């Protein structure tokens, strides 16, 4: 229990928004944790409370054996003593200092020099931040943060300032940087692809409250409630391997089945993300339709959810489908039934798999 971040804090903002978050992160099991939620759910507010940049109204924050904040004991460590480095959305590099001086800012020269080499910044060392691309600024910001030898990194939407192409590329880079840095990280994002690609654990925040926390794929597969399901949006996160690509389409191996999807330029180990609403069910035999992605399987369970029904399937890999209650009754679904899941090519989203779990 000692190697944890535990936090239970409340804070009311002037806007009337109330944050009431309870979170416990096992830092050993989860080098990178994603704090996920729709915009306005209080993710950044919580991150600022953890960093010590804002003060909760009440509660307690403990990191390993240290108490960072305790409302009843009137303890509130300033950011300088927490050493939880906050990485701002736009990197917040010091504009009057060169790249080298930025990395050097709070670190012994030796450490800084080593990080400049590790992050491939040697050629940029004498440049000023405004002469860097978004991705380069990101690298400098992470290097500067690691140079300060933090105990925890707090990243606020780290990839949101990049354009779409750079963002996909930087996801893998960022994950590698965070793992190599050896410092537990908490990454705020509202992008599910980012959550899948970056995190080991994720905590889902809705309306100022942590609604669910756990390993990323568990959260996607078993959302705790309807609001979490709605905000995470993707129930099926399946490991995939590239088999071949042909004229813009990629064929990937998912369990025993092969799926076709649009080639987004991702490489290496991948995961295929499929929303449960995008999985259609049919009892027709596979040959009768021109749809390419068919996964034969068996029904595990059918859970009615108002006008919808949630169907869990075993297609060699676990798969969740959400269909209307009407079609569920027309199909006469019972556990153990054999049927076929159909997924459109454009509904399969590929993203880089978080390696080295």
């Amino acid at each position, binding site marked *: 229990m000692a190697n944890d971040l535990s936090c239970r804090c409340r804070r009311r903002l002037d806007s009337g928004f109330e944050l009431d978050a309870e979170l416990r992160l096992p830092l050993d099991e989860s080098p990178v944790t994603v704090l996920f939620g729709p915009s306005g759910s209080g993710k950044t507010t919580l991150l600022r409370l953890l*960093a*010590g*940049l804002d003060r909760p109204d009440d509660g307690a924050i403990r990191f390993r054996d240290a108490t960072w904040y305790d409302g009843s004991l009137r303890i509130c460590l*300033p*950011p*300088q003593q927490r*050493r*939880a*480095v*906050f990485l*701002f959305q*736009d990197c*917040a590099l*010091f*504009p*009057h200092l060169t790249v080298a001086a930025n990395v050097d*800012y*709070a670190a012994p020269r030796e450490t800084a020099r080593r990080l400049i080499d590790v992050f491939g910044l040697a050629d940029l060392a004498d440049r*000023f*931040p*405004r002469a860097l691309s978004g991705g380069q600024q990101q690298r400098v910001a992470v290097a*500067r*943060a690691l140079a*300060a030898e933090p105990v925890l990194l707090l990243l606020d939407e780290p990839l949101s300032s990049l354009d779409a192409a750079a963002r996909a590329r930087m996801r893998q880079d960022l994950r590698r940087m965070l793992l190599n840095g050896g410092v537990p990280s908490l990454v705020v994002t509202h992008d599910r692809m980012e959550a899948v690609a970056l995190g080991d654990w994720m905590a889902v925040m809705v309306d100022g409250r942590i609604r669910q926390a756990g390993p990323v794929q568990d959260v996607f597969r078993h959302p705790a409630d309807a609001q979490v399901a709605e905000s995470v949006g993707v129930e099926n996160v399946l490991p995939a391997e590239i088999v071949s690509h042909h004229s813009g389409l990629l064929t990937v191996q998912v369990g025993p089945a092969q799926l076709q999807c649009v080639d987004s330029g991702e490489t290496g180990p991948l995961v295929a993300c499929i929303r449960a609403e995008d999985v259609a069910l049919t009892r027709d035999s596979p040959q009768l339709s021109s749809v390419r992605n068919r996964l034969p399987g068996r029904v595990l369970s059918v859970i009615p959810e108002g006008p919808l029904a949630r169907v869990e399937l075993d297609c060699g890999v676990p798969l969740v489908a959400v269909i209307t209650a009407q079609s569920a009754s027309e199909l006469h679904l019972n556990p153990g039934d054999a049927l076929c899941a159909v997924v459109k090519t454009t509904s399969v989203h590929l993203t880089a798999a978080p390696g080295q779990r």
Partner: protein
Amino acid sequence: MDWQAIWLSVRLAVSTTLILLAVGMPLAYWLAFSPHRWKFLVEAVVALPLVLPPTVLGFYVLLAIGPRSPVGAFYGRLTGGMLPFSFQGLLVASVLYSLPFTVQPVASAFAAVDRKLVEASWCLGVSRMATFRRVIVPLALPGIATGAILSFAHTMGEFGVVLMVGGNIAGVTRTVSISIYDQVQGLNYGAAAETSLVLLAVSFTVLALTYALQRRVWAIWPMT
């Protein structure tokens, strides 16, 4: 030409500017960053010299530093001298009179520094004092330069306050503007014209320098 008066004014203006930088920067920092709800009262007090007639300000300063006031009495015990009608007394008055000319540009320059940069520095483990020195001051340098130069120019030309607090003692409190007034009173228009021209040249040079410096500072300081 009254070189003695010009030299005295320069000495007074330089000392005032240095004291104002030392006093004004912490005050400006507080005004820029404090969330205190009564801050507007302090802002109003700092801005008072902008609207108060110099005679009124001078009158109150005279009372405040006079030998019967606590401040004046304390100064008397400390040094054996008196503040009114001395260079030191003039310095006190000048500092108060030019306070807004330093504090306002510096405070707005501090407030314009991106708050995230300051917080980033704190998170990296750098103390508030060091963050002020290493992030806020370098980024606010054009504003600090403006404040210093405006205070210098404003003190060079002050008249009413000097007359009230310092009087007209050659080499002690007779500044350039008092000297010009004296010369005109004595119908010595030639000397007044010469001294006026010097003051005009100094003011113009100082202002031209301010703008030139600002341009240059903007150019070498990569700010977004």
